[in-house]
């Protein structure tokens, strides 16, 4: 059965699998490296920003914090100076204010330093005003109040500006902190977004790659495998879709070539089977149909002998005897040929059957011969079950045992031994005798049709027995061969399939 030829496809551009894998790997590595590089850069930036926050920003914020503390000390000193009742306390406050104004805390903030210096001077002026007030007579209340009012007013003005400065510094510190937190949060958000995007891209990339690998590699390989299976099962061939992968494309071409070869083999086998069947049919029909005229010849020869035997001279009667013997021989030959052609035609299906039973049946059919020859037949223990047609296997052993009895050594009674050994999926059965033996050059020839090693006068027969044995064994999927030493005996070896284990 020939399947339709595959539809010709345009031959696609091919890529080597190794090169393709390398290109895909590089692509994946580049894409992932790009993503992870960006993520790493973002993380490094975040890390640097965190370090900068600790090393640069925190000191700046702390400086502001210290300035605020010193501004509050300054405010405290000013308030203490205004409220102080003794010159010593006023001097202490004034000196504190001066010390704060002169300290490098405010070095980097010229405006703040100017304000502090100005306020320190204001406090010194205020201290002098209050000292002058203390020097006035106690009853000069209006002047005393005026001086006190001036000192307080000057200080209040300064105080307000110092508080504003402190508030500004606090707000600036908070803003610096907030801005940095915002920057860190932005960086973190970016890193998270990039990580998620990278992850999503990696997943998409893997899915796309898996789909492409499935489409371009797995599916063509599975199709190729299916095609091989279909070829094996002798089913119609489904054309394979051309692929870009060079190795798979080569595989497809090889499968197509193998398919052609196998189809040719199938065709040849079918022709051979048909020819064999025709030959067998011919042999059967010929042998069957040949017997009819032969019976007629034999019958009329008998009639001639009975009716005209008295009228014939000695030579005439001898000629008729020769003709009769020839007809009988031809009949035996035709019967043997018919039996040979029947092997495998009129048989029961092959099934497990006990080998010993087949052997015992064969022995039973040869009882008289065995008795006459004083033969002993030793059957080995535990003969197996074999897959066979029982009647054919019985016939096989009838022939082998019959030969062993027939070609015995006249100097000793026949001794036959049958044993079986397991060998893989087969049983090897040995039938050994102590007969005449066979010269090595005849070991193959004796299995051919009508081949004989002795004359009919020595041993009657047509020479078809071992040919039938060979046909039976080969029909069961086995082999038959022999080992022999002339004068000592012959061992026939044959293999038969062991029954398959139950599933």
């Amino acid at each position, binding site marked *: 059965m020939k399947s339709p030829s595959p539809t010709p496809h345009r031959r696609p551009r091919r890529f080597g699998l190794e090169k393709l894998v390398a290109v895909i790997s590089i692509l994946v590595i580049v894409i992932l490296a790009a993503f992870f590089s960006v993520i790493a850069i973002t993380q490094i930036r975040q890390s640097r920003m965190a370090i900068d926050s600790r090393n640069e920003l925190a000191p700046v914020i*702390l400086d502001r914090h*210290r300035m605020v*503390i*010193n501004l509050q*000390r300054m405010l405290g*000193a000013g308030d203490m100076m205004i409220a102080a009742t003794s010159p010593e306390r006023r*001097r*202490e406050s004034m*000196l*504190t204010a*001066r*010390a*704060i104004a*002169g*300290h*490098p*805390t405010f*070095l980097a903030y010229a405006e703040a330093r100017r304000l502090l*210096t100005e306020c320190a001077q204001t406090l010194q002026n205020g201290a002098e005003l209050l000292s002058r007030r203390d020097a006035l007579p106690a009853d000069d209340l209006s002047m005393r109040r005026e001086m006190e009012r001036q000192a307080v007013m000057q200080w209040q003005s300064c105080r307000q500006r110092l508080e504003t400065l402190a508030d500004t510094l606090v707000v600036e510190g908070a803003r610096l902190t907030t801005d940095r937190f915002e920057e860190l949060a932005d960086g973190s958000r970016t890193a998270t977004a990039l990580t998620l995007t990278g992850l999503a891209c990696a997943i998409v990339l893997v899915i796309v790659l898996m789909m492409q690998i499935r489409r371009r590699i797995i599916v063509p390989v599975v199709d190729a495998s299916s095609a091989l299976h279909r070829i094996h099962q002798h089913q119609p061939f489904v054309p394979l879709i051309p692929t870009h992968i060079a190795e798979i494309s080569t595989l497809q071409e090889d499968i197509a070539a193998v398919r052609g070869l196998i189809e040719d083999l199938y065709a040849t086998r079918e022709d051979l089977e048909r020819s064999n069947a025709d030959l067998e049919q011919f042999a059967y029909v010929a042998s069957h149909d040949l017997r009819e005229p032969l019976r007629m010849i034999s019958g009329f020869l008998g009639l001639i002998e009975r009716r005209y035997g008295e009228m014939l001279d000695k030579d005439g009667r001898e000629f008729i005897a020769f003709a009769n013997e020839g007809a009988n021989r031809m009949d035996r030959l035709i019967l043997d040929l018919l039996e040979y052609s029947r092997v495998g035609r009129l048989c029961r299906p092959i099934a497990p059957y006990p080998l010993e039973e087949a052997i015992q049946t064969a022995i039973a059919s040869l009882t008289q011969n065995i008795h006459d020859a004083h033969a002993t037949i030793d059957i080995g223990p535990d003969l197996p079950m074999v897959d066979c047609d029982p009647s054919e296997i019985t016939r096989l052993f009838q022939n082998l045992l019959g030969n062993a009895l027939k070609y015995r050594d006249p100097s000793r009674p026949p001794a036959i031994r049958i044993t079986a050994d397991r060998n893989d999926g087969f049983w090897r059965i040995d039938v050994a005798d102590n007969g005449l033996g066979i010269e090595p050059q005849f070991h193959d020839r004796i299995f051919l049709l009508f081949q004989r090693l002795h004359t009919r006068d020595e041993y009657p027969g047509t020479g078809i027995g071992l040919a039938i044995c060979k046909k039976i064994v080969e029909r069961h999927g086995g082999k038959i061969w022999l080992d022999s030493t002339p004068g000592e005996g012959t061992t026939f070896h044959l293999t038969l399939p062991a029954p398959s284990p139950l599933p």
Partner: protein
Amino acid sequence: MANFCKTLILCLVLWPLWGTAADAEEIVIGLTEGSVGFSNRKEDGQIVGYNADIARLMCQRLGLSCRMELLPLKELIEQTASGKVQIAFGNLTHTPERDRKLLFSIPYWRSSSFFVGPRALSNLSQQQLLTGRRVGVQDSSRQQTWLHQHATPTTEIRTYPTTAAILKALAAHEVDLALISMLMAFHFLNSTAGSPFEFIGPSIDNGSTVHVVVSPNRPDLLANVNATLADMIREGTLQHLARQHLPMDIY
């Protein structure tokens, strides 16, 4: 055998303690003598002040056995350079000469220097202030270097071993002006002896960072000092100690 085992176990148990005791090396910590507010000896012999407190705390944290010595600034620098003093709290700022001799820690406060003198000199310019006047400075100090660079030909520079000695000379009118660290002057000006005097003019410069110094042959100690100072700054210990002795945050 049983006694041997007991002795062995006892030795093993006491080994870490013995090791700790052996590791507690004695360190000489030098402090400047007569620096009121930073390091000066009270009448009962106790050394008090901002630097003294930091030194004690540092010894405690580093697990060191410390001995404190008050020294004039010049001796403090020399003995630290020679290794007799291992750690020094001299309110020292960087100068090229000191950088060659000593190992400087990270800064732990900032100093500014002022002239201190009679109130009547308050409104004079720097040039007028220095012309024809006797000015007291501490020997080997940054102020002495500055004064040598800015003095007029008629300025008489008088050096003293300690700040206390300068201020004593000022109170005794042996000098017309003292050029000292503002925070050391602060305590003097608040005292009865300092009442006739004032800060004169602005600070002489923009101030400098002040450092602990370590003997040059003890870089291991410098690393420990730096780590301890960083901890104290970060956790606010220095701010807390400054508040006990000084009128403001001085970092």
